């Protein structure tokens, strides 16, 4: 039996990797992948807790997260395509017109 803390540590590492990728990378696609990484880090802690406490609620939540993530990636990819068409770049540092 693998202890709960192992799962949580892995979950934390996954999430931290996501955050780091989000902050460091400039390519939108990579940033997008980093978001998915963070979501799945959270999902891992959900299912770990669900298994540990024998509660189904955590697993149900994971389904919700996955549904939202699927919807988000559909919209997000559509936006990325639109950005690429108009700006001809995927570098977020050059997509900075929306400001005061």
């Amino acid at each position, binding site marked *: 039996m693998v202890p709960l803390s192992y799962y949580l540590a892995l979950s934390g590492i996954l999430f931290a990797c996501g*955050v780091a990728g*989000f*902050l460091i990378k*400039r390519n939108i696609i990579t*940033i997008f992948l980093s978001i998915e990484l963070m979501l799945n880090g959270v999902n891992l802690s959900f299912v770990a807790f669900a298994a540990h406490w024998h509660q189904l609620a955590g697993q149900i939540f994971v389904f919700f997260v996955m549904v939202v993530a699927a919807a988000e990636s559909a919209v997000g990819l559509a936006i990325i395509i639109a950005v690429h068409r108009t700006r001809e770049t995927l570098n*977020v*540092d050059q*997509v*900075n*017109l*929306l*400001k*005061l």
Partner: protein
Amino acid sequence: MNPPLHLWLIPLIPLAGATINGLIGKKASRQGVSAVALLASGAAFAMALWVALRFSSLTVVPHIEIFAHWIRSGGFNVDFAFYLDQLSLVMLLVVTGVGFLIHIYSVGYMWEDAGYYRFFTYLNLFMFFMLTLVLANNYLMMFIGWEGVGLASYLLIGFWFTKDSAASAGKKAFIVNRIGDFGFLIALFLLIQHFGSLNFQRVFEAVRPLSAETGSAGWLTATGILLMVGAAGKSAQIPLYVWLPDAMEGPTPVSALIHAATMVTAGVYMVSRSHMIFERAPMALTVVAIIGTLTAFFAATIGIAQTDIKKVLAYSTVSQLGYMFMACGVGAFSAGIFHLMTHAFFKGLLFLAAGSVIHGVGGEQDMRKMGGLRSYMPWTFVTMGIATLAIAGIPPLAGFWSKDEILWKAYSSSQGSWVFWLIGVITALITSFYMFRLMYMTFAGDYRGADEHELVVVGHAHGHDAHGLPHESPAVMLVPLIILAVLSLVGGLVGIGNRFEHFLAPVFEQSASLSAAAETSNAIAETGGHGKEWLLMGVSISIAFLGWYLAYLLYSKKPELPQKIADALGGLYATVVHKYYIDELYAAVFIKPLIDGSTRILWQGVDRKIIDAAVNDTADGARNVSDEVRHMQSGNLRSYAGWIAAGAAAVIAYMIWMWTKA
């Protein structure tokens, strides 16, 4: 029980006239507007006459008609109700009668004016408020009329509102009246506090058993003096008289109706109506008498040196009102009301005749540019001459009877004194002098306005013949003049044998405790008094002729004399010409500090430095903070992510810190 007299119709008919003319008069023809206005005021007059005819058949006087409840608040009740006794009947007849004549006159005088319908709307509105004032059954309704006539006065003084002087004269009248109204209101509050009522009958019944405040001044004295403050505002007495001469900016019929015959006498009416209070406050009565006497003398001296025909009459009005207050102040209320009535006739006539003169010479008001008008305007000359004889106190015209009555009472009454009489007689001399001066300057000699005539600034909108020689006014203006002249001739005869006094006696009956003093003074009058009365009468008649002679000497026989006298008097003359610098004094003492205080403290200090500053500083602060903070919104996605991560890290750090502490 009395049969119903439908008193409500008397004020409401003019109100209906004002409403009709005000709503549709702009589109109606001048004939239509005149018909409505004349019908309204004529019907009010007819009603008043009918009421006067029915008056003797009334079994209960005062006759009271209650139409509706107004305020029911605990024990404090005010009704919409009218009160008819001998005093209000006299006022009713004077207001509707003179008012109707002046309406007729105005048709001719204002015919060329662009604001014709507006003028008659205001005039009818004035009639409504004035009739409410004189018929009111309680002080509160009287106050409505009181404020209403002030409003009408304001509207009519500023009738030619495009002229700056007219607009500010209107404001001045209104503001000065507010000061008086403040005193009146406080007096009403005192009455409510002590009697819980403003109803005339209830207040008078409650006052009746009280004894006079002879030793020390009590609240009755305070009420009396505050009522007098109100009266001084409305009736242009010292120290609040300054608005009336400026009010001459209004059209001349307005000066005649409102600022000579009716509205300005409202104060005299109010004091007389409240005689029950004043009789029990001898000190307040003395204040009234002193203010009246001083005003009479003071205003008359200013009248000597004025050159504007209407200004002379304005100061004369202030002076004559002073006589009325002198009469009230010595307890001779019926003499005051008598003078009020005769004054309404002859002063109304004087103003209307002056209007006719101004009309005839194309808008000129300066008497130095008149002269010799007798041959051009014979009717105006004759009628104005009659009014002048009347106001000067030449027997047997109206003014003689009433003025002599006042002077005699000022001397003989228990409240009176020879000082009042002496100042009154000197004032009579001055009155006679300045009135005949006006007559000589206007009607005698040669016409002096011919050359400048075309250059005359026609302040009045009658742009008709601003050229050519003076001419007589149309018949529609002359008929009221003639009727008023007849009234000025015979109006005083009702006072012979004290008939007028006896008619008003039920109103001014003395209560038992006070009548003792009156008895003694009457006894004096009966025994040694008659000879003295004739003597004093002789003095006042000769004084009137003396004034006439002086005016004749100075302004007809030796026209170069006045200038010499003026030069000899130097500074004194200049002071009189400048009306004793009272306007300048008020400007320096009251108006300038008020304006400066408002500008520097309230506007620049409180408003700009505190209120505006608070609002503006809040806005400025928000903007300055935003200016700094908005740089965070760089548009750079990764910096946003960085802020979010930093924020999340901070929250987590806080939670861990709290957790470890617990």
